[in-house]
């Protein structure tokens, strides 16, 4: 079992990083009821962990017994019926799904599943009618229509089901949905907190970690706890006992992007652009999301640039990322950014050095 899963806190009182949030959540559900919730924060900050712990707090250990189902819904959409296929993760008390997997049909999924849940309402031990919890991941990737239909369904079926929404940024969730939920911001853990967690794991595993080693991993992790724990485990596999100067392996795709960055800094020509295209394709086919590539590329370039160019390059990065979102094929926009950068950089070189 990976350490990330093994040391994921199971209950709200065991969490290390967001203790204040956990305490508040505990108070919130102490009466067995809760409002709709919206968790937002960067990835690797512990949104999912808190949600799972919260479910356990409400429903007890039975919330952990989940089964994976691959369901097909037949949706009646006016003139024709559409089959929507989606994988769900469910226990007797909650259903969890990624509606954005259904692409543009996400609207139907959201409506159908909530209706279905409302139909068979669970009854709790006291014979009172209980509620089910629907956990929706990646709400920010939901289409606008789906978000609009979500707000109707949220109100209509609020007696029988509670929604727990999980998203990376709350700006992409419409105001209407946001105002119906209790918003819970989960910030990325500070480096000291990550160090605490790593030391906790090291203690549990009976490992000796030299002074400052955990701090180095935390620094490299970009305040992403999941990544820090994964890196820690990788280091453990590569070399144990740890030494103070042990290299912390970077992610291979980051290495690759940094190679691309130095490639385009060295030479600006159509030939080089062609070579870079191959590398970008390589990254895309390995399922690295294009906006992550672009951001990383910008990060690498900013490290090497003169300050007067930084403004312009970041401006164009924002420009092409926006275009990428509107368009269909990411490679065009990535390549356009590279070409733009080459042109800016080359004319800068010419104007400074002649």
């Amino acid at each position: 079992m990976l350490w990330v899963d093994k040391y994921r806190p199971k209950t709200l009182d065991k969490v290390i990083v967001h203790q204040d949030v956990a305490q508040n959540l505990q108070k919130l559900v102490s009466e067995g009821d809760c409002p709709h919730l919206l968790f937002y924060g960067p990835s690797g900050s512990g949104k999912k962990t808190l949600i799972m712990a919260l479910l356990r707090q409400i429903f007890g250990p039975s919330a952990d017994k989940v089964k994976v189902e691959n369901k097909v819904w037949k949706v009646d959409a006016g003139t024709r019926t559409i089959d929507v296929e989606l994988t769900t993760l469910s226990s007797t008390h909650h259903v969890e799904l990624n509606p954005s997997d259904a692409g543009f049909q996400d609207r139907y999924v959201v409506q159908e599943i909530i209706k279905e849940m409302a139909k068979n309402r669970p009854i709790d031990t006291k014979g009172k009618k209980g509620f089910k919890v629907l956990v929706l991941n990646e709400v920010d990737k939901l289409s606008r229509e789906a978000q609009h239909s979500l707000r109707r369904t949220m109100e209509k079926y609020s007696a029988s089901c509670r929604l727990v929404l999980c998203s990376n940024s709350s700006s992409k969730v419409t105001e209407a949905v946001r105002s119906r939920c209790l918003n819970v911001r989960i910030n990325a853990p500070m480096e000291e907190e990550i160090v605490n967690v790593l030391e906790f794991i090291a203690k549990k595993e009976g490992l000796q970690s030299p002074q400052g080693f955990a701090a180095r991993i935390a620094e490299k992790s970009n305040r992403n706890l999941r990544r820090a724990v994964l890196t820690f485990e990788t280091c453990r596999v590569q070399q144990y006992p740890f030494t103070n100067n042990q290299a912390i392996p970077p992610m291979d795709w980051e290495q690759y992007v940094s190679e691309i960055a130095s490639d385009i800094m060295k030479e600006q020509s159509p030939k080089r652009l062609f070579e870079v295209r191959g590398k970008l394709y390589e990254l895309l086919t390995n399922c690295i999301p294009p906006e992550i590539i672009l951001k990383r590329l910008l990060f690498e370039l900013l490290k090497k640039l003169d300050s007067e160019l930084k403004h312009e390059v970041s401006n164009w990065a924002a420009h092409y990322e926006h275009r990428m979102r509107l368009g269909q094929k990411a490679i065009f926009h990535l390549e356009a950014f590279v070409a733009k950068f080459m042109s800016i950089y080359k004319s800068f070189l010419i104007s400074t050095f002649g």
Partner: protein
Amino acid sequence: MTQDAQNALRRTMETYSKVTRFFFICNYISRIIEPLASRCAKFRFKPLTEEIMGSRILHICKEEGLNLDSEALSTLSSISQGDLRRAITYLQSAARLFGSSISAKDLISVSGVIPNVVVQAIFSACRSGNFDLANKEVNNVIAEGYPVSQMLSQLYDIVVDADDISDEQKARICKKFAEADKCLVDGADEYLQLLNVASSTMQALSNMPQDMIIFGQNKKCYGLPSCTLF
């Protein structure tokens, strides 16, 4: 309602005026077509004043047994911007999360408003003219998970209120805010947009030329918003 629907309503209103009276509620009277507006007696509702809101909130607090100090009350009225429903919602959420005594900080954390310190940090980084400092602050905002759209509107308030910024600079900065906001609605990446806004604000504040034509290329393209190119 669409224009067509409003036009259709006009006939219906006259035909059935004997048996039916209509009540219309709208946010903007300018979006009601003239013939329809002229058929009705108009009542205008102003946003609630701070005193009225304050007294109502205190009334609720008394009924619910909540403890609210004066600082929290003024925070509540400023973050809800004259919207009583929103104020009550915030109050209820805060009461559920933090129990019966509520401070200004609790209200801010429930409402999703960004603490002033954070916004000021970004703004002073922009003033400093140091790109790397601004980049660091932007990274921090993203890691803390603050919504960037909210950030933009709070930055906007600061920029407009600032006395030492010339009108032209303000215009340049606000133009960039508008573009970034549109991009965010389209689903663009928050980090890149905020970085872009910070960098252009910095350029405007230090009076750097907007169109970087020093490099002599694509003069037309520089400084134009992405949207106009479509």
